């Protein structure tokens, strides 16, 4: 290792400090919301600005989770994220695997048609009319079925399956294994890291889904968490957030909002560390060669 010159050391420290500041700016909003949501309501009302609370409290959370509307929308989102992700992975990976097999007769034309859907979208209204014609308005499946697959994911998955040795599928088919069985019992288990990355993207997509829910679900009992959040945070309506019996004193609205934000990002925070090493790879599959 060669010794660093003085100017280089200054440059390096400066770089480290600037990047550190950037990370602080990115992290601060989340930190602030987290801390305030756990502050004692009395202390927050008195100080208005709390960076290091003296008295902690989970009052905002107990209030929030005791309201039927909030708990219900969390359940709706959990359903969306789990069922949606499993269905999406199944539909996308089966198509992508089939397209990666050389003996598939129509692969060229199908690939072209899939790329076309990336380049050109018919817009909001034709999609809305289709969902309406299918009778899916006010049905939670309206958020899953149209989002099952997309051109990009299928392309990336196909690229990934292309990179698996072709001998695996060939050997299996010589042993009399059908394509469906090969896909299910051999290819999928081999692709676990990639599936984890794609699964994370699908799951986050479903968990964060807002616009489709706004379009297709009028019944507030079916709302996922994001639509409830929009009403709470941006429309400032707390109509649905009344705890049964009202024995509790309502914590300040600001605190409820912050607690709601923390609850809504909790699932992401929980899976994040487990999948972090996979997702960079997932984001890169097919985008940079070499």
């Amino acid at each position, binding site marked *: 290792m060669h010794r660093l010159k003085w100017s*280089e050391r200054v*440059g*390096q420290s400066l*770089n480290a400090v600037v990047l550190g500041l*950037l*990370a602080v*700016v*990115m*992290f601060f*909003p*989340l930190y602030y*919301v987290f801390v305030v949501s756990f502050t004692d309501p009395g202390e927050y009302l008195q100080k*208005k*600005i709390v960076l290091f609370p003296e008295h902690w409290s989970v009052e905002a959370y107990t209030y929030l989770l005791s309201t039927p509307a909030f708990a219900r929308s969390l359940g709706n989102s959990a359903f969306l994220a789990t069922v949606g992700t499993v269905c999406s992975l199944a*539909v*996308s990976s*089966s*198509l992508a*695997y*089939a397209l990666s097999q050389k*003996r*598939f*007769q129509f692969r060229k034309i199908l690939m072209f048609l899939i*790329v076309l*859907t990336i*380049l*050109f*979208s*018919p*817009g*909001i*209204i*034709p999609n*809305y*009319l*289709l969902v309406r014609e299918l009778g899916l308005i006010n049905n939670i499946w309206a958020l899953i079925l149209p989002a*099952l*697959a997309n051109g990009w994911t*299928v392309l990336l998955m196909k690229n990934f399956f292309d990179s698996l040795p072709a001998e695996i599928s060939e050997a299996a088919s010589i042993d009399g294994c059908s*394509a*469906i069985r090969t896909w299910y019992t051999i290819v999928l288990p081999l692709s676990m890291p990639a599936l984890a990355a794609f699964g994370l993207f699908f799951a*986050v997509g479903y*968990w*964060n889904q*807002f*616009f489709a829910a706004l379009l297709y679900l009028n019944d507030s009992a079916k709302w996922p968490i*994001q639509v409830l*959040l*929009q009403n709470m*945070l*941006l429309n400032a309506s707390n109509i649905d957030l009344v705890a049964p019996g009202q024995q509790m004193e309502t914590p300040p609205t600001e605190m409820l909002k*912050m607690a709601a934000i923390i609850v809504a*990002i909790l699932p*992401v925070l929980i899976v994040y560390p487990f999948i*972090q090493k996979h997702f*960079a790879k997932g*984001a*890169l599959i097919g*985008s*940079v060669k070499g």
Partner: protein
Amino acid sequence: MNTVKGKQTSARSKWLNLLSALRRDQSLYLLALPGILFFLVFKYIPMWGIIIAFQDYSPFRGIQGSEWVGLQHFTELFANPDFALLFRNTLAISLLNLILFFPFPILISLGLNELRSVAYKRLIQTIIYMPHFLSWVIIAGLTLLLFAKGTGLINELFTLWGWPRVDILTNPDSFWVMVTLQAMWKEAGWGTIVFLAAMASVDTQLYEAARMDGAGRLRQIWHITLPAIRSVIIVLLILRLGDIMEVGFEQIFLMYNGAVSEVAEVFDTYVYRTGIEQGDFSYSTAVGLFKSVIGLVLVVVANRVVKRMGQEGVY
């Protein structure tokens, strides 16, 4: 086996081959079926639905029964004074993105690449990737909690210091810059992934050699690191140019308020308002189609340019 003679027999044998292939690999085609059905129903039927842009679509009569009006909705759009406004807002937000947002991940990547401590680099990456996974609803909510004129943290701080309160969220002058900064906060960290990957593939011997020749860090960045990521930069830049009609719809929709409508209405929000809220399906489909066609042309042109420059295109 068929002996192939003349066009007819060859066409027939092709069919027979296809049929036998289909039968032999039944399970392969069965595997692809759900995915193909999905693309047919949810991607291609809506494309057919575009024809209502050329009709006076009535939900009761359906596409078959509705009256044809040709290009009437398009001429209506171009004659509408809203049109210039939509165009201006969409372009302004896109261009600000290009100038402020685009170079930012490149700068961060250069910085991260220079860090010596692997642990510190990991820590920073973990933090700056995070906002990518938050929904626009949450980010709009965070923005409100920090910047609202009444109870936002920034304004509480300003009051504490005796400064006047500032109005950021309902101010037409700051709207464009605010949404650009917001998008940078969410996506800039995530945007570094692709550049860092390109930098990681640089041969370290190049740096050694440069150091032997007396090149400092800045010269090494200029002559080795930047050329190494040039092709990625060019591809992403031109893709971005092709995407100029796209602005983050959910973001704009959520940050939209009456006070900033003059600067915040873009094509997508306009489609939502005229179509879903006012029920003018045909007119709003025409607006959406106009936007999509311009977008398609831009992508195709951009891809040509990339290929002409000797780079690998997007398709």
